[in-house]
């Protein structure tokens, strides 16, 4: 943090934030963990958007991924397992000036946090939400997650898990007031970055489902996901997540999809053939609960006093 800022050599405005300004400590994730990639992307986003670190808050639950706030040089709230959403809503509710991000894992969000998640979608508070789905419990060392595929061998399912995985996209798209629902993969940094960026630009609850590598506890899955290009399909639309042509070419498959079409979005999510990366759905002008929260900010002590006195008059003897 001291000395010459790395990109200070460029001619930049005085208060320009550089990557360094968003970095804190050394991220304690395993080598090859997808979380590193997301962290890098988010720090880059902050710089690109020139987010004021002191006006930015990262909120998380508990899990490997939820360590994220500790590695951002912004305000942070590393709370309880499964409870990032209510905390984030509470922060944003009356602080429209803050830029609030939520980091959550598949256990954190889809298992213990499922109730809060459903309702956060409906509240549609202006949050940028990243769900790190490694289809396993990382921090507690390999237990099945609700997103684990059938047959996942874990410490609680030594003979393979038996239930079909919950699909975070399908669930999200089933909740009223869903407003931005996208899917990306940590090993495609360009696409992931474009997705996070679009999510951040959206006003409302921007839900980014990130397929995340956990080479420690899901090595085969990581291998399959990252090597089998047949499964993955890029969603192409001008209103969707757009990447450069070079990046586009790296996808073996692509498909058109209008992100305003929620029925289409649900069908994509339900598809068992392909994993689609891109913007599934974006709805504009949805109700934002934080607009309500902030609608009467700034009432003065005088006004409050007058209001209370009027109340006492009502209850007066």
């Amino acid at each position, binding site marked *: 943090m001291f000395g010459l800022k790395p990109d200070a050599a460029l001619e930049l405005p005085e208060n320009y934030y550089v990557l360094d300004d968003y970095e804190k400590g050394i991220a304690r994730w395993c080598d090859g963990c997808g979380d590193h990639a997301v962290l890098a992307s988010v720090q880059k986003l902050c710089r690109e958007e020139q987010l004021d*670190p*002191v*006006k930015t*808050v*990262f*909120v998380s639950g508990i899990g490997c991924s939820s360590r994220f*706030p*500790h590695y*951002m*040089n*912004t*305000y*942070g*709230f*590393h*709370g*309880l397992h499964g*409870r990032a*959403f*209510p*905390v*984030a*809503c*509470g*922060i*944003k*509710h*009356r*602080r429209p*000036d*803050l830029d609030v991000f939520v980091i959550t894992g598949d256990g954190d969000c889809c298992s213990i946090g499922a*109730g*809060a998640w*459903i*309702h956060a979608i409906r509240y549609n508070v202006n949050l940028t939400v990243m769900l790190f789905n490694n289809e396993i419990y990382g921090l507690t060392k390999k237990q099945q997650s609700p997103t684990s595929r059938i047959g996942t061998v874990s410490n609680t399912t030594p003979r393979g898990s038996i239930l079909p995985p919950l699909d975070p996209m399908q669930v999200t798209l089933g909740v009223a007031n869903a407003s931005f629902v996208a899917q990306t993969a940590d090993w495609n940094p360009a696409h992931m970055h474009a997705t996070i960026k679009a999510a951040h630009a959206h006003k409302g609850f921007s839900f980014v489902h990130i397929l995340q590598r956990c080479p420690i506890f899901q090595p085969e899955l990581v291998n399959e996901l990252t090597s089998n290009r047949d499964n993955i399909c890029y969603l192409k639309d001008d209103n969707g997540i757009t990447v450069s042509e070079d990046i586009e070419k790296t996808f073996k498959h692509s498909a058109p999809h209008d992100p305003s079409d929620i029925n289409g979005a649900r069908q994509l999510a339900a598809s068992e053939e392909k994993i689609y990366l891109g913007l599934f759905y974006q709805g504009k002008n949805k109700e934002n609960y934080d607009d*309500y*929260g902030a609608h*009467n*900010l*700034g*009432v003065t*002590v005088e*006004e*409050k*006093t007058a*209001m*209370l*006195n009027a*109340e*006492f008059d*009502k*209850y*007066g*003897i």
Partner: protein
Amino acid sequence: MSVTTELKEKVTQKGNKAIRLSEHIVEIVSDSGEGAQKCGQSFASISAKMGNGVWTVEIIPAEIQPPARTREGASGIRIRIGSEKVTNMGNEANLVVAFNEQVPYGRIDQSAYTEGTIMLIESKWAEEASDSIRESYAEALKDFNERGYEVIEVPMEKECLKLVKNPRKGKNMWVLGMLCEIYSRDIGRAEAQIKQIFRKKSDTIINSNIDLLHAGYKWAKENLDFEYEITPMELDEQLVVMNGNEAVGMGVIASGMEVCSMYPITPATSASHYLADVFESAGGVVHQAEDEIAAVGFAIGSSYSGKTAVTITSGPGIALKTEFLGLAAMAEVPLVIVDVQRGGPSTGLPTKVEQSDLLAILYGQTGDAPKIVMAMATIEECFHFVILARKIADSFRTPVYLLTDANLATGQQPFARPKIQRDWFAPPVDQSPWKEGVTPFNWDPETGLSKRPIPGQSGGIYTLTGLAHDTKGKVSYNPDNNQKTSELRSKKLATFKRTLKPPTINGEESGDLLIVSWGSTLGSIEEAVGLAQKEGLKVSSIHLRFLSPLEPGLKEIFSRFKKVMTIEINYSDKADADGITEDNRRYAQLAWILRARTLVDVDCYSNVMGQPLSPKKVLREIKQRINK
């Protein structure tokens, strides 16, 4: 339709001056949905406005639709009015208005009436088509007479039918009129009251209710041959009258908190109803969360962002908030938690009063989670303690718990109109730069106190965590750090305790028996202690407002009394119950912590009958202990 002969002898003939009373207890009991509570609250309000002391207790069945004409279905209200300040519900009722003959039994089960209680009972049941109803009515009347009640049959619905089509709906205002006449209430004030309660309704409705009021008044004037008057107090100050939940709501506003995050639960919900109605105009918002966990999480988020918030709940809600409350203690998040206690454990007795969340509040979180806990004793304190709690929460960077209960929540009582003070209100969110070199947990080693950075403050960046952390807020698994920071968090209680004075003693400074109590029982206990003192018994009482840390000097005070006991509304084994010994007796909750704190053999009387304690019951216990 006329008063029994015995009664006649006691009451003044109409035309003569009304009988002057120093106090009277009135009950209105009915099936649920018949408006008895609205009637009683109006009557209480009018009485308070005329300068009487007042205390109300709602009689609430736990079911949404209890069966009609049954003792479990008894719904209604008790109003105690006096020429002095009234601090509790009193003993047996003096006058009862009953909408049918079954509901009084729900109250008789609770010894609410006694010989001489006047019972004004709806007479229509005598003419009911159903044989069984007519019979049960006749039987009950006979029984009431045998019990020595002064029964007066009143044709309530019949009279109402002259004015409205559905007398079941209007009856309550007719009864209000009748009561106004009996107690010489100002009918103009009653009219104003009706206009106030029906302010959201049409003029037609308002007028019809005013007509009923006058009809009831007129009927009583013409048909009842007794009249009372309860001398008003000399008021040298302005008063307001409200229930405890409304007072909490106003306290929230006056504290400057702008976020109330809650999930509905009886008997706490009405506080948020009140706030939902008016908070927005004072710059506040009520957030109805999806559950209690999210409610407290949202409040903590709000507090973290600089807007210290309140969450209001009852037992089962407290249970769900446990984990987040541990986080608030660990991460030192200012937060106000109001627990409107009800009967437990589990779903228990949702509409009934109990003081049995004390231990759960004090010790409910795993690990060592120090906190500040206060309990309101009066409705006035329901207002003022919220303001105090917000201040303590902010300056001690801690969750502060406020314990009230179903009794305070729904009771009404006049108190001095608060003079609003500027410094009650939380200052605006601090966005000035954070002082350089100061860490986010810059604990003062003497006091454990520290200031917290608020998002938006430059230089204050930190990540709040529920993991063990150091002065920088960074996760630390260092053994010494955990010991040190635990000490610092604990120290805040010692620091806070230094700001407290020992409790004042009600009565002599020493004696045979000291009663220790907390919460809504104050009025009954002080009334009983007063009576006992008048009888020459050497009994005094203290009433605690601070439960964590406990008020100082208790051991010393206890040492001046031969016996010390608590009186509480929660569970304890009776000392003389079969198989109960000193070695296994389970004590009432405050008694238990006082024993640990003072090593004095603190005895207790408590029960879980779901009822406020009557002064009579308290007096009986006092006498028993003193004679033992």
